[in-house]
């Protein structure tokens, strides 16, 4: 349950923060959420990773489909050297997920190991 709540919190707060702050605020958001809702390191990482990974996947996919993937075709050719909009979306999600996951993981080491819940 904690996992689900933190996941949604990170996603929503990341979206809101990115309206005003540079993209890397996602690491800060994930860190803060996990600082308040502590979890074991692996779960913390996965929580941050999937929260922002999914958020960025959904956002970029939504933007790209409205654009009929016109730009994604071109930018994937430019950046990835292959014409593959979906892969560009996956890379986008992975970068967001990785940075947020690491922010969350960092927070998980702020406390002693969380005892296994009964």
């Amino acid at each position, binding site marked *: 349950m904690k996992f689900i709540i933190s996941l949604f919190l990170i996603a929503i707060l990341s979206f809101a923060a990115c309206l005003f702050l540079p993209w890397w605020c996602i690491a800060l958001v994930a860190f803060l959420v996990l600082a308040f809702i502590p979890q074991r390191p692996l779960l913390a990482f996965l929580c941050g990773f999937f929260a922002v990974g999914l958020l960025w996947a959904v956002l970029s996919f939504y933007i790209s489909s409205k654009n009929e993937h016109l730009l994604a075709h071109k930018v994937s050719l430019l950046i990835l050297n292959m014409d593959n909009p979906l892969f560009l979306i996956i*890379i986008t999600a992975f*970068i967001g997920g990785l940075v947020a996951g690491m922010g969350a993981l960092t927070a998980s080491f702020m406390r002693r190991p969380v005892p296994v819940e009964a």
Partner: protein
Amino acid sequence: MRIIPFVVCALLTLALIVTFNSKLLLPAPLGKLLAPQEGVWQNAEPAGYDFSADLKFQSLKGKVEVYFDDRLVPHVFAEQENDVYFVQGYLHAKFRLWQMDLQTLSAAGRASEVVGDIALNHDREFRRLGMVFAAENSLKMMETDPVIKASCDAYTAGVNAYIHSLTAATLPLEYKLIGYRPEAWSNLRTALFLKYMSYDLAAHENDFEMTNAQQYFSASDFSLLYPAIQDSLDPIIPRGTVYGAPSITPVIPAAADSLYFKEPVTVEEANTPDKDNGSNNWAVSGSKTASGEPILCNDPHLGLNLPSLWYEMQLSTPTFNAYGASFPGSPSVIIGFNDSTAFGFTNGGRDVRDYFEITFKDDSRQEYWFDSSWQKTTFRYEEIMIAGKPTFIDTVAYTVFGPVMFDKSYSGKRTGNKKNYAVRWKAHDPSNELIIFNKLNHADNYSDYQEAVVNLHTPGQNCVFATKSGDIAIRTQGEWPAKWQGQGDFIMPGFDSSYMWQGMIPDAETPFQYNPERGFVSSANQRPADATYPYYLGREYPTPRGLIINRRLEAMQQVTPKDMMNLQTDNYNVFAEMAMPIFLKNIRTTALNSNEKKFYDLLRNWNLRNDPDSKGATVFVELWGKFKGEVFDDEFANAPQPVLRPFESTLLEGVLKDPAYKFIDNINTATVETLEDISTTAFKKAVLDLKIPDAARKLEWALFKGTSVNHLAKIPAFSRKNLYIGGGNNIINATKQNHGPSWRMVLSLTAETEAYGIYPGGQSGNPGSRFYDNFVDDWAAGKYYTLWMMTKDQNTDSRVKWKMTFSPS
């Protein structure tokens, strides 16, 4: 707290952020670029994007309404004249900011600020040519004209209003990819843009190349290789026109012939404008049209880029209503029409950039020898900022001629040069080119046109004009130096004022035509007048396009706009028409093997048209290239570089006139080669080179040529490659690999103007917009769009898709 994992993770997170936010490890800041709310995804314009908006700006005097049609062409209706320029600036910036910024940074010799020291030579050369000096001189004059000052101020305010509205997310795509931000626009930027056009159109010369040729070849060979006039010339102003006595007779310095230099030049420009920059324009009078009203046509041939140099728009105020192609970077419509008249341009192409050899007293460059005494130079300190490197300071000496462009510290592409060459460029002189477009946008009749175009100093243009009252006209306009025969074809001595330009040809002596009997006027960059024109016009003009255009127009009656579109897109190769008999007569078919025979049949059966599917055209073009080599490679093998090869028409006419043309013989062999020998050798070599394209099934002309419209930063994914389009060099449809008709326009001046046009691009400069390149395929297919001169009461017309309003706040 588990301190060690915490610190390690925190550092790792930071390292990831830095990696994804910079170019330290990755070639691009991938996180910043791909973050959906900030990076390039934000430039993915929704296919159904709504361009409508309500905007308020302090600097507006009245209301402005902008209606966008389905091609995203804005129709701007302003209550106040200058507001129209504010909105034009705003829209140029909204749709084309990056290109305006890039082109003017480049013009100012500031490209290194963006791309680093790979552009340093470019920047030094532009500074040393005096691009900024020239723009500053022009700006001073522009700003003394209250009309132009006001329009530029409004335009600049409009551009800046848009720039100030940008956020990290809305920044144009290229800024994000390259990683910089636009700076504020200024009137100087507009002046720089116009100098950029002057560079493109009026900086072409071959002074170094000709100097080397002159010192290498004998006088008789030289005049054979570089004649002043081609026999096939059909000048802009027809042969037989009588010119009055010149009011200026430039005096040839006594030592002119002997003082041309006997040592090779060892500098070479790092940048040269494309020698193919040219155009077609013509106007046909009502006596030759089906409607009885004039038709005006223009297609400027320039580098083909995305975003395009052109932005289509309508500007409407209580004092004028103009439609056409505008330059992002400059106010007004540049090529187009208004309610009473139409106007277009082709490049004049005369040599207005000459070099003078300077002798400095010593290495301090503070004094130079001129008219028997030491004269003081002045210095201009050019600070070139370089991304990631310390600023480079280039100290440029200025003389009575202009800046010393080449010296010990800078010799372009070459090294080891010890000489100093000052450049005298007409574009250095103060001038106010913007007034021409302003006045043409307002013009009602022929005298308005005359009053407008006389202001055109540089780049000189053949200005075509037509009115609804039935007038047609052309003027070979520009402020041209009155040169003695051959002046400025070579480097001149810089110690003697008698070698300087001695005056400008008075405007009253500009060749022009007004309602000529033949019922049309035309220009295609050919020599403006024949040899009876009393001033020296230089040597380098392309001849064939003018020839075929005039031949076609001469034969046409009852002309319709459709006929004119067919003419603009005509792929007939008049140059091949003249050259083919040489090959068909002289290639020894008995010496050909079966494979060569196959290619020979393609050539023999060719219909002389460079149509996209023509294989014969490919064989001819390849053969002509090899033929040129067979004739001249031996003579030029040891010539000092850079050197100019003879023009194609010179070779063609040389061989046509004299089958034993002197240069046919290969000077490196004991035998004397004949025209048959070299035609056959050239053909065999051509076939050898065509093997690969043949095997790859790329023998069709369009596939072989591979026309592309390249992104300005040469990003392949943002470019359009391998367009299926015919045409080429010396053809009315002058579409080469990355160069060609950058805007095609046909205007029939009937009561309601029937207007057609297209350019290879799209209205939006954003590669993420469906309007980025949506005209390209239609352009390649030779189609035209109907240009809609909208009236304000048509604002409910189904063609109107979006509306922007601009009001004073």
